[in-house]
C-alpha cells in the first residue's frame, strides 16, 4: 500500500504540471487584460500609465517566460497578489474556501444520508409504484439545471413569499451575535443548501439503486437466501455491503467537486465562494488568482481520485495494492 501511494503521488506530478501548463496557456491566450476595466472606469488614465501597469505584471512576456515566473513564485511558497484586489491570494482563497465548504459539505452529507436508503428501497422494490416514482424524481433531479431551480426558488420563495433572504450568506452589517447570528446564517444557507442537496440526492440515489440491483442478482445473494437468512439480513448484510463499494468510490470522487461543483448556484445566490471567486478572476483576467484558484480545484480533484482508490481498497477485501 505504501509503495502504491508513493507511486500514485509521483504520478500526480506530471498531471499537475500538464494541468497548470494548459490552464496557464489558455488564460494567457484569452483576449483582454486585467486593467481593461480600470481604464473604462477611469478615462483620465493615460495610455503610458496603462502600458506601465501591463509591463509591471509582465503582460508582454512570451507565455513560457510568464509561466516560468509564475512557477518560480509558487515554488518559493507564495501564491502572489491578486491584480484586481491587491490582496494576498492565499488570504482571499482561504476565506472563500471556508464559505464554499460551509455550503458543500452539509449538502454532501445530507444528500448521502437521504440518497442511500432511498436507492436501496427503490432497488429492493423494483418495478413497484414507489420505485417508479423515485426513479422518475431522480431523473427529474439530474435533468433540471441547478441554477434554474435556484432561480425559481429565489423568485417564488425568497422574493414573492419572503420566506428566505434573497442572497449572500448573512445579513450585512446587522451585527448579529450568538443564536441570532446562527439563525441568520442558517436562514441564508437554507435555499442554496436544499438545491444542492436535491440535485445530489438524485444522482446518488440512482447510483445506489443500480449498484444494488446489480448485486441483488448475484449468485451469493441466492446463496444467502438458500441459507435461510431473513430478507433484512440478505439485503443489509449481504447485498448492501457489496453495493456500497462503488457508491463509496463515487462519493470519494465527488469530494473533488466540493470546491467547484456549485459555481452557477453560487452565482445565483451571490454566495461568496470559490466558484464565484475564480469566475470573477477569469472575467477580470486576474491571472495569478485564476491560476491559484484553478490549480487548487484541480488538485482537490486529483486528491479525491486518490482517496477513492484508497477507500476502494478498504471497502473491498479483494483489492490490495502493492
Amino acid at each position, binding site marked *: 500500500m505504501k509503495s502504491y501511494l508513493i507511486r500514485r503521488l509521483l504520478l500526480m506530478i506530471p498531471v499537475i504540471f500538464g494541468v497548470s501548463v494548459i490552464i496557464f496557456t489558455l488564460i494567457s491566450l484569452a483576449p483582454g487584460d486585467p486593467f481593461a476595466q480600470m481604464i473604462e472606469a477611469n478615462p483620465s488614465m493615460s495610455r503610458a500609465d496603462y502600458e506601465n501597469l501591463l509591463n509591471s505584471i509582465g503582460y508582454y512576456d512570451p507565455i513560457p517566460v510568464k509561466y516560468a515566473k509564475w512557477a518560480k513564485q509558487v515554488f518559493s511558497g507564495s501564491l502572489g497578489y491578486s491584480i484586481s484586489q491587491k490582496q494576498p491570494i492565499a488570504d482571499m482563497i482561504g476565506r472563500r474556501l471556508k464559505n464554499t465548504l460551509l455550503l458543500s459539505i452539509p449538502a454532501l452529507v445530507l444528500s448521502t444520508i437521504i440518497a442511500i436508503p432511498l436507492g436501496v428501497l427503490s432497488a429492493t422494490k423494483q418495478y413497484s409504484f414507489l420505485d417508479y416514482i423515485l426513479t422518475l424524481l431522480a431523473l427529474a433531479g439530474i435533468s433540471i439545471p441547478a441554477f434554474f431551480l435556484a432561480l425559481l426558488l429565489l423568485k417564488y420563495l425568497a422574493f414573492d413569499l419572503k420566506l428566505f433572504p434573497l442572497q449572500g450568506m448573512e445579513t450585512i452589517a446587522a451585527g448579529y451575535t450568538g443564536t441570532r447570528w446562527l439563525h441568520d446564517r442558517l436562514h441564508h444557507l437554507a435555499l442554496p443548501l436544499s438545491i444542492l442537496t436535491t440535485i445530489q440526492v438524485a444522482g446518488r440515489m440512482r447510483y445506489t439503486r443500480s449498484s444494488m440491483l446489480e448485486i441483488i442478482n448475484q449468485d451469493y445473494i441466492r446463496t444467502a*437466501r*438458500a441459507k435461510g437468512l431473513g430478507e433484512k*439480513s440478505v439485503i443489509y448484510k449481504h447485498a448492501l455491503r457489496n453495493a456500497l463499494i462503488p457508491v463509496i468510490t463515487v462519493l470519494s470522487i465527488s469530494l473533488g467537486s466540493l470546491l467547484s461543483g456549485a459555481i452557477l448556484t453560487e452565482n445565483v445566490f451571490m454566495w461568496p465562494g470559490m466558484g464565484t471567486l475564480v469566475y470573477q478572476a477569469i472575467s477580470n483576467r486576474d491571472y495569478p488568482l485564476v491560476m491559484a484558484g484553478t490549480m487548487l480545484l484541480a488538485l482537490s480533484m486529483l486528491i479525491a481520485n486518490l482517496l477513492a482508490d484508497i477507500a476502494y481498497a478498504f471497502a*473491498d477485501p479483494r483489492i490490495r495494492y502493492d
Partner: protein
Amino acid sequence: MSEILRIRDLAIDFNTSEGIVSAVRGVDLKISEGEVLGLVGESGCGKSVTSLAVMGLLPKPEGVLKSGQIIFENKNLTAFREEEWQKIRGNEISMIFQEPMTALNPVLTIGDQLGEVLQVHKGIRLGSKENIDICVENLIKVGIPRPQQVLNEYPHQFSGGMRQRIMIAMALSCDPKLIIADEPTTALDVTIQAQILDLLRELKETMKTSILFITHDLGVIHEMADRVMVMYAGKIVEEGPTKELFANPSHPYTQGLMHSRPGKVKKGDPLYCIPGMVPSGRQQIIGCAFEPRCQYSFRPCKTICPLLEFNEKGHGYACHLSKEGGIANVGKAVNISN
C-alpha cells in the same frame, strides 16, 4: 426407507418479455431417506428450476408456480409463507450451487458466512466459541487444511475447488435431511471434480443424508446416484435404478444421451450428437416433446403425450414405442455413425 421429499405434478412458468416460458411441465419425483437421486438432462430442461422450487427460491416475480405440490416430511412447502421457508432453507434442506467462484459473498469472511447459518437456525451466536468450533469441525469434514485461519480469510483467497468445499461445509452446517447439489462439479477442473465427487460420496456414506444430485454429466450420475431420472423439456422421460437404467436405456432421448458420451465412440470416429435443439418452452407442446428430434417418431407422437410406464424393476419411460414392444430391439438398431 421412509420418503423424505415428494413432488407431485410440478409445473412452473416464467414470464419473460418474449412471452410465457413453461420451464417445468408436470414433474413427479420422490426421494427416500439416505437416497441419492440423480436428475439428468441438457441445460434448459428445467432441472435447476425444479431444484430452486424445492428451496422456494424461484426468481420473483418472473417465476410462477403454476401447479403441483412439494411435500417435504409431510409438510406441503408450496403452501409455505416466506418465514416458514426461511426455517427450512439451510437447515433441513440445503443447497450446493454450480458456480463456487461466485456463490460466496466476496466481502464477508468465510467464518462469517459459515457461522451465520448456525446463528440463524441454531441460535449459536456468531463469533462465539461454540460457533467457531462447529465451523472448524465442518471445515475439517470437507477436507480444508488449517481451518482455524481459513475462518478469517475471504473467498477470493481460495481456488474453485476449495470454495466448493466451503460451500459443502456450509450446506452441512445444520445436518440437513436433504441436500440439493445443482451441478456441483460442472465448473471445476477434472481432477478437482473427482476430488469433490469423492468427498460427496464419502459424506453420503457417513451422514446418511438424502441428496438430489443434478447434472448433465452421465458419468457423474453413474458414480453418484442410486436412482436416476432423465428430464427433457420440463418433463421426466425416463426413471429407474441407476444400474438398470444404464444397462437398458429405453427412451430414445436417454439412448441418444448415452451414445453422445465420448467413451462410446471408437477413436477417430466423430462424436455422436442428437440432431436438433431442445424446444424453447415458449410454444405449446402437445405430443411428445422429443418428437421433432426422434428418429423413431410415428403417428401418435405428434399429438399424444406419452406417460411414464414402469416395469417390475421400477424402471419406466415415457414413449409410445413401449406399447409397440420393440424398444429394446429398436434401441440396438441405432446407427451411431450417422
